[in-house]
């Protein structure tokens, strides 16, 4: 067991749980609907109420809870288009520390 890895790398499942919890709050989803989110589930551009203000709230909450900073130029349609893309982005940011 390696002990010098950052906690975020050691707990990738944590990122998934945090993201699902934030999306539940942003989109007002039931726990069942949240559990059904799959890598291909469409987000930005697929759900009308997921607008720029909602995305801004989501990213700021992700920054707070995951202790990362997301720069302007990292935010684009691709990274927000599906649940899988968002999860990959945030997991990578956390691994970078």
């Amino acid at each position, binding site marked *: 067991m390696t002990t010098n890895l950052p906690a975020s790398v050691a707990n990738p499942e944590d990122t998934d749980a945090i993201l699902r919890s934030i999306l539940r709050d942003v989109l007002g989803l039931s726990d069942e609907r949240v559990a059904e989110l799959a890598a291909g589930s469409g987000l930005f551009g697929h759900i009308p*109420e997921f*607008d720029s*203000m909602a*995305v*801004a*709230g989501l*990213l*700021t*909450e992700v920054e707070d809870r995951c202790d990362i900073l997301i720069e*302007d130029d990292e935010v684009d349609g691709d990274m927000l288009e599906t649940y899988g893309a968002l999860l990959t982005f945030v997991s990578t940011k956390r691994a970078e520390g």
Partner: protein
Amino acid sequence: MLTTWQPPGGSEELAIRFGDDTGPCLLVLPAWFDEGNKTRHFTIETMRLLAGRGVPSVLPDLPGCNESLTGLTEQTLATWREAAAAAAAQFGCSQVLAIRAGANIAPGLPGFAYAPLAGKSALRALLRARTLAAKEAGHPETTEALLQTGKVEGLELAGYHLGAAMVAELAEAVLAPSALVPLDPGGPLLWLRAEPEHNPEQAAALADLIAEGMTA
């Protein structure tokens, strides 16, 4: 019930009171801007429930907010802090409940904080919403450039016209160590919700925590 109060500067502002208005009450400092809209129903219902638990409370309109005739552009963190202190004095408040960014202007009273948010983070979310919308509309802006302009000319963010002084102050505003007791009623974070929503169970849980904390 609706009442009025006078912040420094001489304007007259509205306030909503619940419960017995003869004794000390709880000063409620709400969330700001879009978060304030999304949590307004929740905030008012929590106050109604507090009155039922024997805790009177008051929610003053800050200058420049809601029905205020004063311009938001003229407001700064300092004017809001002075206003919050003046409201506490005029309504005889002995404790405070600060919600989200409301914690940035809490007067030196004991009390509670619900999910406190630094002014800096509040501004960051508003700037991000603007840069995202601009990118979608095909004329990208950067946070850094907006901030530099905003510190000189002020900025319109999410429909709110903030003055240059407010933008500059928010950009540096971190939460000072506070004696306010953090409360966690559980449930969804209503200020994140894309379509504003209320949660009665969460309001009841928060009212319980406050009522217990005030008698402890």
